[in-house]
C-alpha cells in the first residue's frame, strides 16, 4: 500500500511538472528573441514532456520493445527537427 501511494504521488508530481514546463516554455517563447538557444530550450522542454508522458502515463518502459521504441522515436522527431531546421535556416 505504501508503495502504491508512492506511485500515485509520482503521477501527481509528473502532472505538475508537465504543467510547469508547459506554462514556463510558453512564457519563455513569448519573451525571448528568436535564436538558437531559445530554439534549443523549447526543443529540450518538448522532448522532456514527451518522454514524461511516454514513461509515466503510457507506462511504456515495461512494454514490448517495438512499441517502446516507436513511441520514444516519435517523441524525439519534433524536438530534433526544431533544432535541425534552425541550423539549416541559418546556413
Amino acid at each position, binding site marked *: 500500500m505504501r*508503495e*502504491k501511494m*508512492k*506511485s*500515485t504521488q*509520482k*503521477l501527481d508530481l*509528473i*502532472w505538475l511538472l*508537465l*504543467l510547469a514546463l*508547459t*506554462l514556463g*516554455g*510558453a512564457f*519563455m*517563447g*513569448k519573451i*525571448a*528573441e*528568436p535564436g538558437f538557444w*531559445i*530554439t534549443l530550450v*523549447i526543443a529540450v*522542454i*518538448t522532448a522532456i*514532456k*514527451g518522454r514524461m*508522458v*511516454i*514513461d*509515466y*502515463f*503510457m*507506462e*511504456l*518502459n*515495461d*512494454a*514490448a*520493445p517495438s*512499441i517502446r521504441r*516507436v*513511441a520514444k522515436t*516519435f*517523441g524525439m*522527431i*519534433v524536438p530534433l*527537427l*526544431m533544432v*535541425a*531546421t534552425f541550423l*539549416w*535556416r541559418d546556413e
Partner: protein
Amino acid sequence: MSYFEVAAPPSSEKSTSGIKPRILGNRAIWVGIFAEFTEFTLMFLVYFVARINHPQDFHEGPQKLSVLAGSMNTVLMVTSSFFVARAIVAMRAERREVCMRWLVAALITAAGYPLVKLLEIRWNVSQGLTGNGDVFLMSYYYLTFNHLVHVSWGILGMGYVIVRIWFGGYSAANHDGLVAFASYWHATDLIWLMIFPLFYVLP
C-alpha cells in the same frame, strides 16, 4: 520500478521478469496508435519543409495566434491524460467507483478542449486569421483540425469505457479495454505536446 509493476496483478502483466514483452491494452489499439503516429509524423515533416521555405511566416505566426488558448488546451489535454492514468491505478486496485470518478473528471476536462478550440477559432476569424492566410496558418489549421478529430474519437472512447465500467465491464484482473483506451488517449496527448510549441511558442 514503475508504479504499474507495484499495482498490477502479479501473474499476467509483468515483463521485467523476462516472461514476455507486454502489449498494453491490445494489439488493435497499437495498430491504430502507430497509424496515428505515422500520420502526424508526415504532417510534421510538411510543417518543417514549409518552415524552411517560409521562415518569415513561421517567425511571425505564433505572435498572431492566442497563446492563452493554446496553453489552456495543453493544460486540459495533460490534465485529462493524468486523470486517466489515475483511473487505471484505481482499477488495478479494484476500486471501480474511484476509477469512475477519475474518468468522469477526465471526460469533463477533455470536453473543455473542443470548447476552447471553438472559442479560439472564433477569435481567429475575428482577427482575420483564416485558412486562406499564409502557409503558417494553413498548416496550423490542417494539423490542429486533424488533432481535434483524434480528440473527438478519444472522447467517444472515454464515454464508452465509462459506460462499460458502469455496467461492471472491467475488473482488476481484466481491464485490457480500459488500458487500450488509455494508451490511445495518452498518445493523443503526446501528439498535442508536439503540436503546441510548433504553433504557439517557437519563435
